């Protein structure tokens, strides 16, 4: 089968693995977008900027304060998550009652401000972040840096923990109930506005966590999230934002599709996700895991 396309298996498996790593980031980011949208009814355009802030926070902690990667992996999402909570309290709260578009525009403006300030202060060229787990394994068909393998596993764990927290725990049940009917949940004595604030903080922390994980793979730069967030939007349209598991599966799946395209027809690898989006819109407009409203 592989001989028909005359693709060397090394290239195929190598690119699929790289695709899986990209997919890990798509999954983590679209998951955060879905969680935030479910609760706040806001598409968080700032997601890419918050992902970048996560990476930057880790880089600054390392270079300025000598905080190692493993500590930054916990500290950076907390710092960025708190920043998200402040944003929610001060600004996002004021647009919930308006059309969805205003939340989109507000977070777009915030992304411009954040990315502009980082670019102004640190320039647009990237800074390297040393890999916390150097070395790697020869898998026979390719050389796998240990850190990249770790990222895939870590992303899977993060996604599954988030899924478990929302679908299987009591707090998650409150959250889902508040999404369905906030007034009723309030009548039961649950502080819904605080729940919303916490959800946004969690979603933002998730983006920052993805940013920290990305730091050793990519260069840490002010614009690292700008294009990524646009691809993640396409991922979200393909998956539909209705289901948490849906975002995870779609994210990883599209990473693989992208990797596969890189082997078969490299020039299309940038655009294949958008083509998939067009096909999904034709066949199943609500998205693969979405419900038609």
């Amino acid at each position, binding site marked *: 089968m592989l001989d028909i396309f005359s693709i060397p298996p090394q290239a195929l498996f190598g690119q699929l693995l790289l695709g899986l790593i990209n997919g890990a980031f798509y999954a983590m980011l679209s998951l955060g977008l879905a969680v935030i949208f479910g609760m706040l009814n806001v598409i968080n355009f700032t997601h890419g900027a918050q992902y970048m802030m996560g990476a930057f926070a880790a880089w600054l902690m390392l270079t300025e304060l000598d905080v190692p990667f493993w500590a930054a992996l916990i500290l950076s999402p907390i710092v960025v998550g708190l920043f998200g909570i402040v944003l929610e309290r001060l600004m996002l709260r004021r647009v919930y009652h308006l059309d969805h*578009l205003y939340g989109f*525009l507000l977070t777009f*403006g*915030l992304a*411009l401000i954040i990315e502009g*300030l980082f*670019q102004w202060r640190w320039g647009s060229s990237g800074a390297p972040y040393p890999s916390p787990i150097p070395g790697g394994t020869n898998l026979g068909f390719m050389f796998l840096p240990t850190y990249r393998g770790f990222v895939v596993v870590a992303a899977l764990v993060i996604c599954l923990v988030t899924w478990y927290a929302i679908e299987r725990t009591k707090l998650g049940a409150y959250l889902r109930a508040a999404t369905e009917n906030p007034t009723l949940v309030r009548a039961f004595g649950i502080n819904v506005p605080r729940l919303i604030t916490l959800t946004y903080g969690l979603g933002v922390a998730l983006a920052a966590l993805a940013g920290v994980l990305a730091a050793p793979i990519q260069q840490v730069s002010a614009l690292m999230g700008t294009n990524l967030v646009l691809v993640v939007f*396409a991922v979200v349209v393909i998956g539909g934002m209705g289901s948490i598991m849906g975002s995870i599966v779609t994210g990883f799946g599209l990473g693989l599709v992208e990797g596969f395209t890189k082997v078969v027809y490299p020039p299309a690898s940038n655009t294949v996700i958008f083509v998939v989006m067009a096909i999904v*819109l*034709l066949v199943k407009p609500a998205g693969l895991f979405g419900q038609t409203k």
Partner: protein
Amino acid sequence: MNMRLLGILAVAVLALAAPWIVYPVFLMKALCFALFACAFNLLLGYAGLMSFGHAMFFGMAAYFFGHTVKVWDWPVEFGIVAAVLGAALLGLITGALAIRRQGIYFAMITLAFAQMIYFLCVQMPFTGGEDGLQGIARKPLLFGLIPTENDYGLYYVVLAIFLLGFGAIYRFIHSPFGQVLKAIRDNEQRAVSLGYEADRYKLLAFVLSAAVAGLAGATKAMVVHFATLTDVSSGTSGEVVLMALIGGLGTITGPVVGAFVVVAMQDYLAFVGQLVLVIQGVIFVVIVLAFRKGVVGEIADWWKARRKIS
């Protein structure tokens, strides 16, 4: 009524005399963006569809114009027509897909398609990649009757193109078709139950908006002599949203005001460099939180309130 006539007259005199007061290239650029913003606003204000990827029509039309006029050596008129048709065709394809979803999804889908077009433009040979298409010569119009080498001469051509596009939008909004479009915007189910095929109306509005955006893009390429990746980038898509937002979503003249503000900011605040984006972001935030009606919307409200009192 007399006040209104007087106002229109004043604007006309100002538009004709403007190039002797303000730098003409700035004015021409602002007019192109004003037309672009009007096209965007037609879709948002009258069909309730917010496209976050309108740069794809603006930028691709600039490339079509540049390629036909520079590489194929077509006359300018044909170049513009080709660019408008090209943008309309792109609008037909992306629009047919995008209108399958509504609201916020529509914005995300158009954004994603625009990003796809951007990636294609980086790779395809006919766009000149990172360099763009440079040195598109200005050629005289109408068999040499109208000279365009001179900025002052070209200004009136651009003004005429702007008025043509603006007039087309105005005519469209005030036609029975525009009325149906508004009905769909306000209550789609009811319009459908009355027998209107909502999707067809939305698609036609989308194609028209894309075509006018294309007219603006081609004209801009003619004015500044080049077409670059900036014109198709998501930054330009965001800027046109900002223009409509500053002027007032859903007002006819608002986008024109917004376009002049944004283009002036780019030109006169160039010295702050990257901080222009920060300023744009701040404007987004302030308008969304405090002045959702925009400049023209707020003034119109103030005017109405004043008339009620007197």
